[in-house]
């Protein structure tokens, strides 16, 4: 029994989730008294591998070639399953990112593995991993036990901590898979990157606007606050459906699930569809003029007031505090 952690990189840079997955897997490996192997797939990745040492990695398997520059579901699945088998790794960790969520089920099918997806906590009971994960729009938390010999867990980004420690040396081994054209029968031909602010799923601060913003022309108030905080702009379903904001920004059901350190909900009432996507935020601030809005039930701090009165001075005050 070994643990295999998949460290996600794109464009030769590790995602924060790569460190979260590595460090969490290392913690579990230590508790189970077993070894951790970290897998990195891509092109031109050699230079970044030592970074994993600060998160507990000591052994890394690197798979690189030009065709792996972009993520490719079938090729990445084949490689990961092969490395897991070769290493006799029976516990596999992935980020519940767009890459990890796409990749892990295919590997589960290859290895006949049970899977716990989008985990928000892990514990060990009698030598077995029990994974907690939200279900039913976050209204309940499930405890899942995997019963198959190979077990796969995907971890919700931003929930598990990644704190760099004085890392040891990382030893890297190369693995060269036999890839055929069939492994690239779904091929990424381009990546369209949205310019500017961070994505809601990766940001540690999100400023979100809802119907209370009254119109798309007022989202500059949200954007200004987000920019002062270096955060992402989020939106409720109502404003996305109304065409005020792009779908990429939608938080909640039929949008994205986020776990930032700080979530500022502006003019958002807090419908269950919205709460489902952001209730695992560490701190929630709500600004809404309706004191009975459900968002206040989950907010840590609230201002019962008009967003148009509160947002401009809030932005100014934060500028002062942050020395901007």
């Amino acid at each position, binding site marked *: 029994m070994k643990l295999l952690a998949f460290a996600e990189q794109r464009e030769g840079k590790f995602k924060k989730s790569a460190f979260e997955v590595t460090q969490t897997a290392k913690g579990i490996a230590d508790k189970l008294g077993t070894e951790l192997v970290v897998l990195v797939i891509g092109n031109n990745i050699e230079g970044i591998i030592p970074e994993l040492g600060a998160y507990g990695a000591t052994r890394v398997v690197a798979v690189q070639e030009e065709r792996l520059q972009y993520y490719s579901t079938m090729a990445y699945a084949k490689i990961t399953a092969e490395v897991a088998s070769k290493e006799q790794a029976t516990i596999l960790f992935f980020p519940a990112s767009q890459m990890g969520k796409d990749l892990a*089920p*295919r590997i589960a099918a290859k290895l006949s593995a049970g899977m716990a997806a*989008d985990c928000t906590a892990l514990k060990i009971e009698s030598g077995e991993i029990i994974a907690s994960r939200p279900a039913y729009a976050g*209204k*309940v938390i499930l405890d899942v036990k995997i019963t198959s010999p190979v077990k796969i867990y995907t971890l919700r980004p931003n929930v598990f901590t990644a704190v760099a420690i004085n890392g040891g040396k990382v030893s890297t081994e190369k693995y060269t898979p036999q890839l055929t054209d069939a492994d690239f029968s779904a091929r990424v*031909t381009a990546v369209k990157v949205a310019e500017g602010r961070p994505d809601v799923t990766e940001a540690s601060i999100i400023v979100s606007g809802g119907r209370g913003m009254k119109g798309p022309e007022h989202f500059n108030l949200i954007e200004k606050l987000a920019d002062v905080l270096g955060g992402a702009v989020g939106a409720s379903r109502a404003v996305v459906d109304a065409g005020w904001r792009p779908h990429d920004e939608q938080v909640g059901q039929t949008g994205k699930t986020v776990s930032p350190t700080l979530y500022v909900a502006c003019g958002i009432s807090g419908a269950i569809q919205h709460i489902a996507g952001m209730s695992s935020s560490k701190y929630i601030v709500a600004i809404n003029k309706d004191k009975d809005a459900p968002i*206040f039930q989950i907010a840590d701090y609230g*201002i019962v007031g008009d967003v148009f009165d*509160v947002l401009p001075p809030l932005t100014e005050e934060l500028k002062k505090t942050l020395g901007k």
Partner: protein
Amino acid sequence: MKFVACINHVPDTEAKIKIGSGGNAIDRTGVNYILNPYDEFAIEAALQLKEKKGGETFAVTLGGDSHKETLRKALAMGIDKVILLKDDSVRDSFSVAKALADELKKLTPDFIFFGKQSIDYNGEQLPGLVAEMLGIPSVSTVVKMSVEETKVICEREIEGGHEVVETSYPVVISAQKGLNEPRYPSLKGIMASKSKPIEERQPIAVPSAAEVVGMQKPPSKQSGKIVGTDATAVPELVRLLHEEAKVI
């Protein structure tokens, strides 16, 4: 050509969820069930492709008799044939995927659509599992798709942008909001759906690979602090964020 939408019957988002007496499943009494919202995009995608390419559309679901309601909705939207893999047992995604893959093998579809996720368990596992079991490509969280001759070009959501994926069919596509605007069932469609047959089949039995051993309500958050009722509360809010929460 054949276009299949794999769909699910799930509790309405607004439903009050109570934990059942067994402690590892919800209490279904009084819970309103609906067609999984993401699956409407899957059904719409199947219908639109049929309109362009010609052929036949199917909807498949696995579950008990109550799932028939959701299959009727698919019929009302315009799906030609619906199949219920009738099964009341508790299955994990792996077991459901095996049963679906077994049925899909017999159907030999050109396109298999799923909603991005089911809003009950939110695992996002089935599209990838089924595609791998069938040995065909898959593209998940697709927001744009075009089919030219044998080529399928998709855009899928990733963090901070989109990936453009080129593939061919047969293929499994998981649909994200944005892929299309699901149509409302017409009155004629609704009337017709009532008399259309629902084919019932016995899915293969496959043991689950994961089980729910416990279920809890999320820790209830203490209602937060109302810092104030107008802009005068701003300095105090910033102080709390800075000094108490230490998030800025």
